[in-house]
C-alpha cells in the first residue's frame, strides 16, 4: 500500500483543503500523519476481494419526499449574518482572482 506523505504531497493536500500551514505545523503533521498511515497498514492483511463497500450509515432505500413546496425548512436561515449579501445571496470576492 502506498503510504507516504512527503512535504510536496502535504502542500498539495493543504492547497486542496484550502488551509494555510506554517512550517512548524507542516513538520508536526508529516510526523503525525506518517505514524497514523503506518497503523493503517494492517488493513492490507484483510482479504476484501468480494466484499461490497458500505456507503451509508444505515441500510435505507431512497428517502424521497413528495415533490411539493414546503414551508417547513430552514431555507434562508443565516442570511442576516452574512458580512455582505445581495438578494439573499452571499457576496464574495471574484472566484478567479482580480
Amino acid at each position, binding site marked *: 500500500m502506498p503510504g507516504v506523505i512527503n512535504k510536496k504531497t502535504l502542500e498539495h493536500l493543504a492547497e486542496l483543503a484550502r*488551509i494555510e500551514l506554517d512550517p512548524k505545523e507542516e513538520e508536526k503533521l508529516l510526523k503525525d500523519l506518517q505514524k497514523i498511515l503506518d497503523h493503517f497498514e*494492517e488493513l492490507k492483511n484483510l482479504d476484501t476481494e468480494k466484499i461490497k463497500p458500505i456507503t451509508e450509515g444505515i441500510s435505507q432505500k431512497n428517502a424521497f419526499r413528495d415533490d411539493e413546496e414546503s414551508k417547513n425548512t430552514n431555507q434562508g436561515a443565516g442570511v442576516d449574518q452574512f458580512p455582505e449579501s445581495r438578494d439573499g445571496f452571499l457576496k464574495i470576492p471574484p472566484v478567479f482572482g482580480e
Partner: protein
Amino acid sequence: MPPILHNFTIKSFHEGLLNKKFSALEVVQLFYKHIKDSDKNIGAYLSLNEDEAIKKAEETDLAIAKGENISFLAGAPLAIKDNILIKGLPATAGSKILENYTASYDAGVIKKLKEEKAVFLGKTNLDEFAMGSSTENSAFKITRNPHDPDRVPGGSSGGSAAAVAAHMALAALGSDTGGSIRQPAAFCGVVGLKPTYGAVSRSGLIAMASSLDQIGPITKTVEDAAVLFKAISGKDPLDATSAETDYGDEILHPDFERIKKLKVGIPKEYFAEKLQQETEAGVEEAIKKIKSLKIEFKEISLPHTKYALSTYYIIMPAEVSANLARFDGIRYSQISNLKSQVSNLQDIYLKQRGLGLGPEPKRRIILGTFVLSSGYYDAYYAKAQQVRTLIRKDFDEAWEKVDVILTPVTPTTAFKIGEKTSDPLSMYLSDIFTIPANLAGLPAISIPTSGAKYQASSNFSASSLPVGFQLIGQPFKESDILGLGQYYEKL
C-alpha cells in the same frame, strides 16, 4: 452545594414539580447559582442562557398553577453540547472559526425539546468540531473531570458529561461519532446513550462524519436516558437519513420478564488485551451483577474488531474533510483583522481556515483529503468501506446467537490532563471499544458500574475514578439495552 440538586433526576424533578415541592424557577435559579459557584473550577459551559431559561421555567410554573397538564420534561434544566444549534444562541463547535456564530435555526432535537417545554441552561464545552477524546482540543478552554480536577472528563462531549456529573444540569445532550457520548459518560460516572444511526435527527448538529454521527442523552440514570431518548427520537423531514421509528411504551416501561430472557454476548476480542485493573474490576463486577439476575451469557467472537480503529480513522476524516469545507471564514463567522490584509478569495479561505481551525481538525481534514485523493482512494477509503462491511457482518452473525453485547467502554479510567496530547494516535486508541458500534450503526449505552454510580454525595473521591460498562444492541432495539440497564440500576 445546595443539597437538593444532586438528588435530582428528570423523574424526581418532574414529580417534585407536580407535588409542588418546589417551582421550576427555584430549581433553575439553584442550578445557575451552583454553576456560578462551581463551573470556574470545572469549565463545563461555554455560554449560559439565563434570561431565556428563567422565562421558560416561569412558563412551566404558570401552567402548573393553572392546573394544566405538563409534559414529563417541562421545566427540566438541560445542558446542550455546543455543536447542536439553538436558534439565537452561540454555536461555536469549540472552534475559533465559529467564535462569532449565532445559530440561525433550531436543531431537530431542540425543536422537539422546546415542544416538551424543556429549559436550556447553556451550551457545553467540547473538543473542536467533536474531534477528540478529552475535551482538551476545545479552542476556548479545557474541562476538568468533576471526580479529579487533574484529569480529563473525556470527549468530545466532556462539557455535557461534566455538567451532569457535577450537578450543574439535570441532564444533557451530547453527540457521538466514535464514542464521544459513551467515553466521557464512563469517565464522569454518568449514563451516556448513542442511539441507532438514524433514530435521532442530525438536523442542526454541526456535522462531523455524516454516516457515523448521532445525538444522544447524557444523564444520571438509565431511566432518565430513556425519557430523554424517547423525546428526541423520531423521523425528521429535514434529515433524510433519519428513520421511521416506532418506539412504543417499552422504552419508558421495560418488560423485565422479557429482559430477563435476553442473551448477553461477551466478545472475546474486547477482553483479549490486559485491561487496566480498575476498569477490568468494574466491568467484571457489572457482569457478575447481571449474571445474578439469571440472565444467560455467551462468549462470542467479533473477529474484525481490531481493524475498527483504522477503518474509522480513514472513513471519518474523509467525511470530515467534506463536512468542514463549508467553514470559509465568511458565511458563518469571520476572524477579524484579516479583511484589510486579504482580498483575494483563495487567500481568505487559506488564512481564515489556517487561523480558525485547530490542530486536530487540520490533521483530520488533511488525512481525509489524502485518503480521498486520486491514487490513494482505492487503497484507503474504498478498502475501509469494505472492512466496514466485515465489521457489520461480525455483529449480524453475533445477533443470531445473542441479543445484547457487553463490553468495557474505555481501556482505562480518566487519564490526566496533558497525558495524551502530544501523540494523536495514543489519543485515538481511547476509542477502540466504542468505535465499532458507530461503524455498524448500532445503539450503545455506557452505564456506570455500581461502585462509581452517580452518588448522592458531594464528596468526589479522587481515589475512586468511575468505570463504565457498555451494552450494544441490535438496530432500533434501544428497548433492550435501556431495559437491561434499568434492571441493572435497580440492583
